[in-house]
Structure formats: structure tokens, C-alpha cells
């Protein structure tokens, strides 16, 4: 249709055309609304005296708070370690050829996933009421439960065993994501089942396992706050002890929250690089780090040369 009218115009007029970019008034309005709301929020955070920023500043590096962070980190690390190791074992059990082994793993996962972790923690904490002494059924072994199950061991058992149930599902999904041809090729080369799992299947499953595991680690860091109910002096409990004394509840909750955000942010960065490491061979090139992305952005949108979208 345009072609029909075009020839009537002179050829020289072609150069006079220019492109007018579409306007997006909606984008400007929504951006303005969000900025406005953000400013209002920031103003209230700064001006509301109940936040008690001075108190926050006073306690942010308090000795007992820092010690609490230490325990939170230790708990997270130990419980995730138990969760991952036991989770791999459970995942391998779930795909075993032996139906009893398979069912046992399923029952474990079902039990720990089916009860609230808070209830599990309380159970471990009160284990002495259930079994006053632990013998493991071995003659000569008689351990006092109360002496063995300190709040910290109860916390580690509760969180670690519960985490194993979730990790086993993640690991199992990872193992199942690896093509069957891989174990066949390994088998044809004479590589035995255990070595195939360790050297061929699990490294490839990592690509699927790592992202949700990072997620779980961050979740675990926050879940450790639950063990404050069995008086383990981690970050939240340490803050609670202080505000029970000075009644500065909100500022001390802010202190704890700030530390939780700082640590989870650091873990997120670690997760990115871990994922990048296990992406080897998965794609033709590795995903870019934020720094590489920034460099690329600067190259493309160089305001000095205005070369535009040239590479």
C-alpha cells in the first residue's frame, strides 16, 4: 500500500524522514509513584524515633551480639553439612534397587517433612523425658541423656536431621536430571556404580542441586532463629536477652535483622560463584559475573563515543 504512494514523492525527500520514538507515559508515572513511596518510607524510617537508631548503633557491634552471630553461623554450617551428607545418602537410598532401603528413606523424609521443625526441636530438647538414658541397645553403654543433649546438640540434631529430609529431595531431583546415557557410558567403560555416582553423576547433578541448596542455606540461617526457644544463645536469642533487660525491643530486633540481611547477602554472592563453577561444560560460555556485566554495559552504552549497540 505504501509502495503505491511512494513513487509520487521525490527521491530526495527520503533523507528527510526521521524516527520518533514511542512515548511511554505509563512507565514514567509508575516510576514516579514508586520513587515517591520509597521516599515516604525512608522518611518514616529516619524520623520515627521508635526505631531508636542510636540504640541500634550502640548494640550493632555488642560483644554478645557478635558472639550470637558466631553461633548462628556455626549452627548454619554444621546443620547444612549434616543435611547435605545425610541428604545424599537418603537420595541414593531412595533410588536403590532394594525396596526396604527405598521405603526406609521414604519414611524418614515423610516423617521429618511432615512435622514442624519447631516441634522436632522441642522433642530433641526434651529427649530425656522420653529416654532418660541412652544405651543404643549395646550392653555396657549407658549414657545420661540430660548430660548429652545440651541445648546446642538438640538444636544441631533438630535442624540437621530435618534439613536432611529436604536436601534428599533436592539431591534426588539432581540425580534424576542426569541423562541415563551417562551411567551407561560409564558402565560400558568398566567404571563401577559407586565411582559412576561420585565422578560422573553427582558432579553433573550439582548444576541442579546448587541453586536450591543455596536457597536452603539462606533459609537455614534464618531458621536457626527458631532455636532461641530452647535457649541457644544465637543471634536472635542474644538480642532478646538484651531487650529483656533494657526494654529496647524494636532497636534490638533491628540489630538482629540488619545482621541477618548482611550475612544472607554475603551468602547470595557465594552462591552465584558456586553456580558459576558448576556450570562448566553446561553452556558454551560461563555466565558473566556482575563486574563483567558492568564492563559490558559500559562498553555498549559508552556515553563518550556513543557508538550505540555495537558489541
Amino acid at each position, binding site marked *: 500500500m505504501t509502495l503505491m504512494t511512494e513513487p509520487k514523492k521525490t527521491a530526495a525527500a527520503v533523507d528527510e524522514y526521521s524516527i520518533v520514538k514511542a512515548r511511554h507515559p505509563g512507565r514514567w508515572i509508575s516510576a514516579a509513584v514508586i520513587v515517591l513511596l520509597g521516599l515516604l518510607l525512608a522518611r518514616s524510617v529516619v524520623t520515627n524515633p521508635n526505631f531508636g537508631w542510636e540504640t541500634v548503633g550502640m548494640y550493632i557491634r555488642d560483644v554478645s551480639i557478635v558472639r550470637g552471630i558466631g553461633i548462628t553461623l556455626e549452627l548454619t554450617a554444621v546443620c547444612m553439612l549434616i543435611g547435605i551428607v545425610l541428604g545424599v545418602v537418603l537420595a541414593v537410598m531412595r533410588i536403590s534397587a532394594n525396596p526396604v532401603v527405598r521405603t526406609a528413606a521414604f519414611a524418614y523424609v515423610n516423617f521429618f517433612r511432615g512435622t514442624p521443625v519447631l516441634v522436632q526441636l522441642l522433642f530433641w530438647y526434651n529427649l530425656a523425658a522420653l529416654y532418660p538414658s541412652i544405651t543404643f541397645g549395646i550392653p555396657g553403654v549407658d549414657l545420661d541423656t540430660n548430660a548429652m543433649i545440651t541445648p546446642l546438640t538438640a538444636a544441631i540434631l533438630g535442624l540437621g536431621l530435618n534439613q536432611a529430609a529436604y536436601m534428599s529431595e533436592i539431591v534426588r531431583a539432581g540425580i534424576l536430571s542426569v541423562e541415563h*546415557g551417562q551411567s551407561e557410558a560409564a558402565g560400558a567403560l568398566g567404571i563401577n556404580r559407586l565411582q559412576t555416582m561420585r565422578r560422573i553423576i553427582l558432579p553433573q547433578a550439582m548444576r541442579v542441586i546448587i541453586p536450591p541448596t543455596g536457597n536452603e542455606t539462606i533459609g537455614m540461617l534464618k531458621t536457626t532463629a527458631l532455636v532461641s526457644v530452647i535457649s541457644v544463645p544465637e543471634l536472635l536469642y542474644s538480642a532478646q536477652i538484651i531487650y529483656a533487660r533494657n526494654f529496647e525491643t524494636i532497636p534490638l530486633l533491628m540489630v538482629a535483622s540488619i545482621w541477618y540481611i548482611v550475612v544472607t547477602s554475603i551468602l547470595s554472592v557465594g552462591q552465584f560463584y558456586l553456580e558459576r563453577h558448576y556450570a562448566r*561444560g553446561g*553452556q558454551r560460555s560461563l555466565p558473566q559475573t556482575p563486574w563483567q556485566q558492568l564492563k559490558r554495559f559500559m562498553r555498549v552504552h559508552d556515553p563518550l563515543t556513543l557508538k550505540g549497540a555495537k558489541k
Partner: protein
Amino acid sequence: MSATILETGATATAPAPMIKADAIRKSYGRLEVLKGIDLQVQRGEVVCLIGPSGSGKSTLLRCINHLETIEGGRMWVDGAVMGYDLKGTKLHEQPHAKICRSRVEIGMVFQHFNLFPHMTVLENLIEAPRLVLKEKRSSATARALSLLESVGLADKAKAYPRQLSGGQQQRVAIARALCMRPKVMLFDEPTSALDPELVGEVLKVMKDLAATGMTMVVVTHEMNFARDVADRVVFMDDGHVVEQGPARDVIGNPQHERTRAFLASVL
């Protein structure tokens, strides 16, 4: 092609056949895919298995290295029953570790290459020699590099499989199997997943390998390759060996009606 593949070639002096299938039976559920297969492959012989899809040729190949269990018959490889201990008339299933040991002698190349994507080409080659043969990294690497050179991929040792073309990946897969110094090589439709222009490079490597005296069993749809390289062609249909003989005879002058129909449809 360098002398490397020559060294991995089997000696053609011993009288017993390299592979002897005795009335092999195999079913998937109610479907019987191998209905009593007899087949012999002599040392140094190149045998091509041809036939329509579903005829059981890939299953038969996978029975040779016990990737598939069998329901009847016996599979002899290099004078021993594969996958079972023969005691009197009873065939006792072997433990997996023993099967793994027998598989060392049998190289296999798959339709979809099945390279390990998280390892470089070199790591793919030396993984099994290191894990299974407990070989030192240096000696495995030396052999792997010369094998890569012989398949024309010396410059790709540090590449990851996904950075290679299909033809290159399959050549790596052949080198990986040869790195275990097998006595016999099995090929399961090695060129079926390749773009047409990449088929030639893989067939050339296989042809060179055959020239070194390696015992080879090849499931293939490449009739030209079968005619030029195979000593013998075995035509299978519906779980039976229908016809077998020298490649030129079976492909050039098929005796059986079903062979003629099949060849007419693929040539």
C-alpha cells in the same frame, strides 16, 4: 592415522571366536525382541548388523557387553560367558564388579556419544583408565593425546564436549573407548545422530580402525560403509538373523525376500 590404534588392535592368531552368541533370547515385558540369536564374530573381523528399526540389532549389541540382561542362551566374549559364571548347566549372575572387569575388554560407542559434559576431552579419555585400570595420570594422558591425534583432534584436548561438533564428539567417544585398550569395539548407530556432512569424518576414523585389525561389531544404516569396510553383514528382522554373509553378497545380491525389501527401502 598414526600407529596408536594399531597397537590397540587385537591379535588375530587365537582360534576361538571373539564373540559367540548362542541362542540369545531377550524380552521387554511381553515383547520378545531377540528370538534365539546365533552369531559368531572372529578375531579381527568387522561385522555390520543391519535391519529395520525394532529388529533387535541394537539390543543384541548391548547384550554383548551385558548392558542388557538376557533371558536365554549364552554370550561368549573372548572365551568366557559374559555376565554369568557357568557352573554345570547353571548360569550364576556375576556381581557387578566382575561384569565391570569384563567390560574393560569391550569398547562401546553410542548413537548420542554420551561424553561426560563436565569434563574436558582429555579428562573424558583418561577418566576410566585412571579409575578402572588404576593407571598413572601421565601414562594415561600420553596415550590419550596420541589417540586424539589419530582421530584428528589433537588441538581439542582442553575443549569441553559441548564446544565440539557432533562429528568431533563422536570421534572423541571413539578415542575414549580405545583409551581402555579394548579387544573388541561395539558401535551402536554411531552416525545416526549426525548431520549428513559430518558422517564422513566418523566413518573414516572407523575405517582406519578396521584397517588396524580391530574386531568390530557395527550397528549401522550406512550401507556404503558396510559394503566397503565390513567383512560380513548380518541382516536382522523381527528378532531373528535372516541372512548373513560377505558384505558384497548380502548387500549386492540378497537371497532373502525381507533383505531385498529392506535394502530397496534404504539404498
